[in-house]
Each structure stands twice: as C-alpha cells, then as structure tokens.
C-alpha cells in the first residue's frame, strides 16, 4: 500500500493501481469516455487528464487512467489548467462528432457550448477502441480492430467485409460510449451497424416461447469453446426454472 493525496485528501491505495481507479473508488469524479473496468486502460480520449506531483517534485499533466500511483504522489483532479485542457479535448471531439449527444452533454458539462473548430461529421466514433478491447479481452474473438492510420483511422472488421470471427454477441455495441455501434434484433435477425459496415446474423428461437434470444454463431462459439452441449441453449433464460 502507498499513501498519496488526491485534491488534498490523503488516501491509501494499492501500489501500481491507476490514479483514475483510485480516485473513482474514493468517490472523486474524473470525466472519461474510454475507460471501463472490464478492459485494460488505453488512454485514448485524454479527458481524464490530471495534474500529478511526484515525491521528487516532478510536476506534469498525465492521463489518470494510465498513471500508476506511488508513495507521496500528489494528484489534482480539477484545476484551471486541467479544465482548459479538457475543454480543448472535448472541443475537438465535438468537432469530430457534432451529432453525438454524449459528447454534446459532456462538452456542456465542461463549459463548451459550441465547437470552435470547423465541424466534420465522422459519425459518433471517437476511436477509443473500447469495442476492440472488449472483443479481444472479454469476448476473446478479436473480430474487430482499428485499421489504417492518421486521419483515415477507423474501427472495422477485417477488409471492412469479413465478419467470420464475429459471434454477434453485441459487446461492442454495449460498451461503445458514444453509440457509434448499434444493434437491433428483429424477426430472427440481429443487425449490428458499425460506422462503415452493417451485418446481419441469424438468431435461434427458444423451443418453448419461440422468442429469438441468441445469435446462432454465439451458441456455436460457446458450445465449441466451453464444451457445453448445444441443446443447453434450446431454452431462453426466461423459460428456464
């Protein structure tokens, strides 16, 4: 355990824990879009910027989601300097995703009403790679990745058309902070819409109530990797005891 201060409050934390996690555990709010407890931190959105001062006296701005705490660290989560930096970041995100209500709300919260940059609608994707990390680390299939680079960077399935690895579980859509990936179930078909692709997947019906409740590929994947009989998925969760 190490002892540090966050906004003047003395707190104890596990050495190596990330400053963002420590702050959130103590109920201190830091805005963020790309952090999620289920996946490794990535530092993409930059909104969780904080000021740190080490015991040796070194001061700088860091992304708290990627900064491991240490003995004697002083963390400031809210200052004029941090606010200015966060405003620039959200201003840029707002120019990229002018239609995203999540970004709009966060911009307003940080005091940015309108982007000062020329807006260019890139859909709602902020390239935070939460979907990519969830697909790789939680689901374990790695069906999607960030492709190309620079201004052409985007999240995509391989070659923009190969959804072979995708099991249609919808984790990417669930975890996406800005609803850039959406999912819709209708008439035995699940449609997953990504910024540059739309794919339909077959659903399996429950043998009792007939409701379509799970994608065929997800059933296959779980049966195959966990050694569960496919019959286990005959009944939906509501029709089981």
């Amino acid at each position, binding site marked *: 355990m190490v002892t540090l201060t966050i906004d003047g409050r003395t707190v104890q934390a596990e050495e190596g824990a990330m400053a963002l996690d420590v702050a959130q555990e103590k109920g201190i709010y830091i805005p963020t879009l790309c952090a999620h407890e289920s996946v490794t931190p990535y530092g993409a959105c930059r909104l969780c910027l904080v000021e740190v001062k080490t015991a040796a006296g070194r001061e700088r701005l860091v992304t708290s989601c990627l900064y491991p705490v240490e003995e004697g660290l002083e963390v400031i989560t809210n200052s004029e300097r941090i606010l200015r930096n966060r405003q620039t970041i959200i201003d840029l995100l707002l120019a990229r995703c002018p239609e995203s209500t999540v970004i709009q709300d966060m911009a307003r919260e940080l005091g940015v009403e309108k982007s000062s940059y020329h807006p260019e609608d890139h859909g709602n994707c902020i390239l935070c790679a939460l979907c*990519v990390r969830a697909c*790789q680390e939680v689901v374990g*299939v*790695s*069906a*999607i*990745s*960030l*492709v*190309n*680079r620079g201004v052409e960077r985007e999240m995509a*399935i*391989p*070659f923009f058309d*190969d959804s*072979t*690895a995708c099991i249609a579980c919808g984790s990417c859509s669930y975890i996406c902070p800005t609803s850039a990936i959406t999912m819709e179930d209708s008439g035995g078909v699940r449609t997953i819409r990504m910024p540059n692709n739309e794919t339909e997947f077959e659903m399996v019906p429950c043998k009792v109530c007939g409701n379509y409740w799970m994608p065929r590929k997800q059933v296959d994947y779980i049966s195959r990797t966990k050694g569960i009989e496919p019959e286990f998925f005959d009944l939906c969760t509501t029709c089981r005891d």
Partner: protein
Amino acid sequence: MTIDAEQIRDKVGSVLDKYQRDKGMLVSILQDTQAALGYLARESLLEVSAGLEVPLSQVYSVASFFRAFSLKPRGRHLIDVCLGTACHVRGAVGILEAIERETGIKSGDTSEDMRFSLETVNCVGACALGPIVIVDGKYEGEMKIDRVKPLLASYD
C-alpha cells in the same frame, strides 16, 4: 499480376517457417511476404493469420497501418517521389505532378497496364541530391521536369 492460391500458400508457408511461426515477428513476416509476392493479397493475410494463430483483425490492423505495406497489386516498377523538406523546396511537387501527368496515375495508385506504381515518401536521407526520385530502388538525384519522360521511358 494475379497470384494463385497455391503460390500464396507456398510462399507464406516458407516465410512463416523462416520465423518459426513467432507471433512477435508479424511485421517482418508481412515484409517478407510482400517482398516475395509483390503485395499483401487478402489470401496472404488469411494465411499469415491462420499460420500464426493471430486474429485476422489484428493482422489487417498492422498491414493497413504501415505505408510500406500495399494491400493492392503493385506495378512492375515502383516510383517513390521524395517530398521531404529539402526536396520540397527544390521543386519536388513539380516533379511529382510531371510523373502523375506522364503515367496518368495519382500518388498511391497503380497504372492499369501494371507498369508503374507511384508513391511519395517523406525524406530518404539524401537531401543534398534533391529533388530525388527512386525507381525500383535506384536513386535519381537532382531531378528536372524534362528528365521525367526519358527516365520513365527507360522502364518497360
């Protein structure tokens, strides 16, 4: 130049063996695959993914990230035009435009007859020779617009 599936399996297989199917050598494996087959065909990436047991999405992510990799077939001759600062101030943009006019293709493209592929680079470390054009690895220094036509004519 189209390559058949068997050829791809052979070449990619021997590249994979050379690197003992080490996942960490992905970039080197892609480089050698491209050197052997001219470009990174979709089937090549599928073979690399299966051979290394690395998800296709990650192979595609790496292959599409680096400018040195081409996912499209490339022409018989590769023209690199340096647009680094020194070449730029010495008129590289004019040279590039002359090459684009002469070949009828834009930077990043390949001519329909598969004769030339055209790319730009940002400095090749030979600034004293600028503006510089590299055709198939051969450096042509102090390029002039009126030298473009004869230079290209010497490649069939």
